[in-house]
């Protein structure tokens, strides 16, 4: 425990980096996945293509992608951009399916009612279809968030900053406290992030909790 209090500064820095590396890809992934999911829900061929591609992306080991990315887009090996791009791709792969399914699950009568009272397609998407898809989207975001947090930790193996450094460091020094701190910190962060997402989800979908 004293070790933890002696290294609060370090822990703080690692937290900032860890949060940054795991949250930013979720945000970027969501922004990109929404139009893709919309396309997948609207056109059958787009759905087949996008869902196949995202399925394939998911089978590539994340660490491998982070390592080969610099060769593809000529960044430095330890550039955090590699991590952000990789995790964004994973988030997209995960969310495209959630979003496509959620949009397909919006009752057609409600979409038709929206059209019939004069919505144009884009506003109808923002005003009716997407809000109704939010509960499923939030569920997808929670999975993406937690998996990103753990992937960032694992990334320490190839030199990525974050709580994972506590494992690698502790392992080299045979210092159990540091390893445990890394595990606990990762768990806590995942837990907090999940709670925050749940809370946001609840706040933006008040209609899902009304009783009869």
């Amino acid at each position: 425990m004293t070790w933890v209090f002696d290294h609060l500064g370090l822990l703080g820095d690692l937290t900032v980096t860890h949060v940054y590396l795991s949250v930013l890809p979720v945000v970027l992934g969501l922004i990109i996945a929404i139009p893709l999911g919309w396309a997948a829900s609207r056109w059958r061929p787009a759905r087949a293509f996008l869902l196949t591609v995202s399925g394939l992306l998911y089978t590539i080991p994340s660490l491998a992608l982070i390592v080969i990315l610099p060769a593809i887009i000529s960044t430095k090996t330890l550039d955090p951009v590699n991590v952000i791009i990789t995790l964004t791709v994973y988030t997209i792969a995960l969310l495209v399916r959630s979003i496509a399914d959620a949009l397909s699950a919006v009752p057609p009568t409600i979409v038709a009612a929206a059209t019939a009272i004069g919505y144009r397609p884009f506003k109808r998407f923002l005003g009716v279809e997407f809000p109704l898809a939010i509960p499923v989207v939030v569920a997808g975001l929670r999975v993406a968030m937690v998996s990103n947090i753990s992937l960032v930790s694992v990334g320490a193996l190839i030199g990525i900053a974050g709580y994972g450094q506590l494992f690698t460091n502790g392992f080299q020094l045979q210092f159990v406290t540091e390893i445990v701190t890394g595990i606990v910190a990762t768990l806590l962060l995942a837990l907090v992030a999940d709670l925050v997402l749940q809370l946001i989800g609840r706040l933006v979908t008040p209609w899902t909790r009304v009783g009869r």
Partner: protein
Amino acid sequence: MVERSAVVSGRGYCRPHYRDDRKDLGVIEFQAVTKRFDDGTVAVDELDLTVDPGRITVFVGPSGCGKTTSLRMINRMIDLTSGSILVDGKDVRQSDPPLLRRGIGYVIQQAGLFPHRTVLDNIATVPVLAGWGRAKARKRAEELLETVGLPAAMGRRYPAQLSGGQQQRVGVARALAVDPPVLLMDEPFSAVDPVVREGLQDELLRLQGELGKTIVFVTHDIDEAIKLGDKVAVFRTGGILAQYDTPAELLARPADDFVTNFVGRDRGYRALGFLTAGGLSLGELAPVKVGATVAEARQALRDGWAVVVDERNHPCGWLSADRLSSVDESATVDADLLLAGGSLYDTEHGSLRSALDAALSSPSALGVAVDGQGVLAGSITADEVLRALAAARTAGEVPQ
């Protein structure tokens, strides 16, 4: 004869009492309209029909006869294959669909409300789309909530917190939000139970009396068609118009066997709903006031029956000699002693049908007639109704 049934609706047909200042907006013309779907199905075949402005026109027919398709071609939810539809002289194909649709109210079965918006926001949807600004749109929504008879507090609820009938009212309010001259309604009341449906139908007629919209109403229920329609278009399978007439004509002179069968067996009886009962002569009734003593009530009995009225002279039930024989002289007449009466016959708005029903449904065989305000006017017998009916027949007003 409970207070609630003081309105004859549902038994006779109460037509909307149209205001005189209605605008003649919202003429809809179908000109040789055909719809052939991609798979070759002809849903509507060479339809020629003009919907009267400011009136209710009902499309009725068996399932799959093209009612919904005809309706949805008006606001271009479905595009027609050939022919043209004109709204106030303008071909609908010349309008941008979303703009066209904002000018045409649309109500569907189960209301189609947005589950993620409060009732008020649902109603305000079209005004907001039309760029009214939030505050004005909400104010309008509050007004409409009242128009359709819902308490203001309900505006903050979500659709899932309303009953089916209440949702349907909100659906109507949403369709009325920008005061469009035309209202399209596709089986709006078919998902609610019969009692609620009857209430919603009466409400629609009341509203229509105030608003005078051009309403195209789709149903497969001929009774609903006859009750609501100023004109009824009967479709047969294959999207062919079988007859387009007033309900009275439809009942009196069905065009062919298909229409005859569709209109149903007791059309002669139902046609009574369109005969005004002005010429009926009413019998005298000596009413007993609520709170009178049993002794007084016994005095008032005629053939073993007496009608009881409240302090405003509104009838509230019958007393029978039977009932009175089992109570003490000095007791007073109260609700416990009363036998519920039948339907009331409103001498101002009622039809022969409601007069006959009043007589047939009364425990004393005397129907109770009231004036337009619900005040006791006299009694009516089935014989008297039949006499008036015979007179009407001689005058050629009823199906022969």
